[in-house]
C-alpha cells in the first residue's frame, strides 16, 4: 500500500520494463497480441506503479482501487504489471498461454491474484466497472475503478449502454481510458467503423472527457490526476497511442495486432526498448547484447 513514490524517469523505466516483458512473453508463447499491449504499456505503468491504491500483499483489500482490462487481449501488459508489483513471481510471465500456466490468453480473475475481472470478449469491462463503483458507493468506500478499453472495442453496443448508465448514476469514481491506437484487426478504425468525433460522443453521453498523449508519462499522470478531481460524472480519458509503441518494426503494423514477434523480431525490438540500463529480468531472460 504505502510504497516509495517513483520518479517520472523511474516510471518511464517501468513502462520500458513492461514492454520488454510483452515482447518476450509473446515471443516465448509464439502467439498473443503485442501491438495493443505495447500501446497500453505507459498507461498501465502509470496506474500500477503510481496512481492506483493497491496492495500486492493483500490483493483482496476491500478499499483497493480496481483496474479492469476490458481490452483483454492486452493481457501481457497487465500480467507484466502485476508481476513487477509482486502479485506473483516474474518467472510465471514466461508461461503465458501454456496449458500448465495460470496466465490465460485473456485474463481470468480466479487464475491469478490481482486480476479483477475476466475479459476477452470485448465490450464488457465498463459494465463491470460500473457495478464495482455502485458497490463501492453502497459500501461507502472511496476506491476508484479504472477500466482500459480499446478504441476498436467501442464498436460494441454494450460500451454505449454502459456509458449511459455510468453518467446516469453519476459514477465519478469510474475512470475509463481508451487506448486510442487507431487500429483494430481489420485495419484502421476509421476504415473499419468510424469512431470520430469520439470525444464529442462521450461528452454527449454525459462524461467528462480528457485527452492525453498516451506515451507521455508526465501527461498521463496529470490527466489521471485531473480525472480524480471530477465530481458528479464519470471521466473518459482518450489516450492517443501508437500500436506496437516502442518497437519500430511493430509500430502501426497490423500484423502485430495478433501475432507474436519471432526470435529475430524479438531481439531487434528488445534492443530498441532497452535504451538505458538493463533490468535484472532482462538479464535473466534476454542475456544477449542490447
Amino acid at each position: 500500500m504505502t510504497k516509495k513514490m517513483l520518479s517520472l524517469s523511474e516510471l518511464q523505466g517501468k513502462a520500458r520494463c513492461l514492454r520488454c516483458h510483452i515482447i518476450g512473453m509473446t515471443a516465448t508463447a509464439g502467439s498473443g497480441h503485442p501491438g495493443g499491449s505495447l500501446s497500453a504499456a505507459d498507461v498501465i505503468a502509470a496506474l500500477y506503479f503510481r496512481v492506483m491504491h493497491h496492495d500486492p500483499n493483500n490483493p483482496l483489500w476491500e478499499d483497493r482501487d480496481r483496474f479492469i482490462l476490458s481490452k483483454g487481449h492486452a493481457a501481457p501488459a497487465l500480467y507484466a504489471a502485476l508481476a513487477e508489483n509482486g502479485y506473483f513471481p516474474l518467472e510465471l510471465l514466461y508461461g503465458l498461454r501454456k496449458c500448465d500456466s495460470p496466465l490465460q490468453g485473456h485474463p481470468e480473475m480466479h487464475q491469478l491474484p490481482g486480476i479483477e475481472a475476466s475479459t476477452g470478449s470485448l465490450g464488457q469491462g465498463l459494465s463491470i466497472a460500473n457495478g464495482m463503483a455502485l458497490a463501492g458507493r453502497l459500501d461507502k468506500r472511496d476506491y476508484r475503478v479504472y477500466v482500459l478499453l480499446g478504441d476498436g472495442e467501442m464498436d460494441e453496443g454494450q460500451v454505449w449502454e454502459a456509458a449511459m448508465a455510468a453518467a446516469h448514476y453519476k459514477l465519478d469514481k469510474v475512470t475509463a481510458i481508451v487506448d486510442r491506437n487507431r487500429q483494430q484487426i481489420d485495419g484502421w478504425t476509421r476504415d473499419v467503423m468510424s469512431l470520430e468525433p469520439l470525444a464529442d460522443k462521450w461528452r454527449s453521453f454525459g462524461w467528462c472527457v480528457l485527452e492525453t498523449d498516451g506515451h507521455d508519462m508526465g501527461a498521463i499522470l496529470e490527466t489521471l490526476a485531473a480525472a480524480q478531481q471530477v465530481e458528479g460524472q464519470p471521466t473518459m480519458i482518450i489516450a492517443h497511442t501508437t500500436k506496437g509503441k516502442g518497437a519500430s518494426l511493430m509500430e502501426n503494423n497490423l500484423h502485430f495486432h495478433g501475432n507474436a514477434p519471432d526470435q529475430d523480431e524479438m531481439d531487434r525490438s528488445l534492443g530498441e526498448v532497452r535504451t538505458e540500463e538493463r533490468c535484472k529480468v532482462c538479464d535473466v531472460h534476454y542475456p544477449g547484447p542490447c
Partner: protein
Amino acid sequence: MTYTTRAHAKPRNAEGTLESSEDSPLLTQLVSTRDAYGQTLLELGRENRDIVVLDADLSASTKTRLFSAEFPERHFEMGIAEANMIGTAAGLASCGKIPFASTFAVFATCRTFDQLRMSVAYPNLNVKVVATHGGISVGEDGASHHSIEDIALACALPNFSVLVVADATQTRAAVRAAAEHAAPVYLRLIRPSVPTVYEAGCNFVIGKAIKLREGSDATIIANGLMLSRALEAARLLSKQGISATVLDMHTVKPLDTEAVLEAASNTGAIVTAEEHLLHGGLGSAVAQTVSEHHPVPMRFVAIRDQYARSGEPEELLEMYGLTAQSILDAVQEVVHEK
C-alpha cells in the same frame, strides 16, 4: 440449504382442504410466481444488506417494485439494456453483493448470452438471473416474447444452476435457495398465475428432485407449469390402471441423476414434460442420463422446433401440445413399449 416447513404438501382443492381422493379436482388455486418472487426479494432485502436488484425497464412486470420501494438505493434501473445489466451485476457480485437481475426470460438469455458467459459463468460470479415470462404462456405478445430457448442456453453455461419453478410456494423457496447458493443461478418464472402444487411449503434443494407421486408403470418428469399437468395426467392415468411416478425436476442443471436413474430402474419408462423447445431442455438432460446409464423407453412433451403464435396462454399450451392429455398419451405410448 433447505427451505421448508414440511416435506411437500398435498394439493388442496378450492376450499383449501387437503385432497383426500384420487378423483377430486387436483389443483385449483391460481397464484403468481412473480408476486412470490417480489415478496421474497423484499424479505431477503430486509435480512441481508448485500442483496441488490437490477431491472431493465420491466420492474412492474418482474415485481421487483416491492423491493425498490423499500430499498431504492439497492435497486438499479438499467433501462432497456440487458447486456449492460448483466455486466453491472457481475461487477456488483465481484464486490460481495448478491445481485438479482430480472427481466423477461427471452431477453434475460437471448440478449445477454455472451455477458452471462463471459462476465458471470466463466468467472463463476454470484449473480442471480431471475427471468419472468418463461415459455409460451406469455401468450398474446407472441413469439418475440415467448422464451422457448432459455433453458437450453442457460444449461449450456458451466457453473450455472438452472431452476424452473412450478408455483408460488416453490418460487419463494427457490429464490431463497438461489440467494444462499454462492454461484450463478438462472431461475425461470412465468407470467400467468398457476395452480398451487405445494400448499404450505416446499422442500427445495438445488439439484434434488421432488417425488410428488409414486407409481410403478412409468415416471413423468416435469417442471414449471407442466408439473401440475403431469399430476393431472397421473391422476387420469390411475383411473385407467396405469400408475405413474411424478417427479418435479425443478433443477434442470445440475440434474438429479440419481432420481432419474431410480425412476428408470423402478418404472422402466419415462415421459418428460416442459414448456420449452424439445432441444436442450429438461427432456434432453434426462435423456442424456438415461441413455448413458439406464436406457428405457422415453417420450418428450415439449415444443417441436417452431415458434408459437399470439394467443391466450391456455389456447397456446393446447395448440402446442403442452397439456395433461399430451402427457397422458405419451405415458400410454411409452408403457406399451416397455
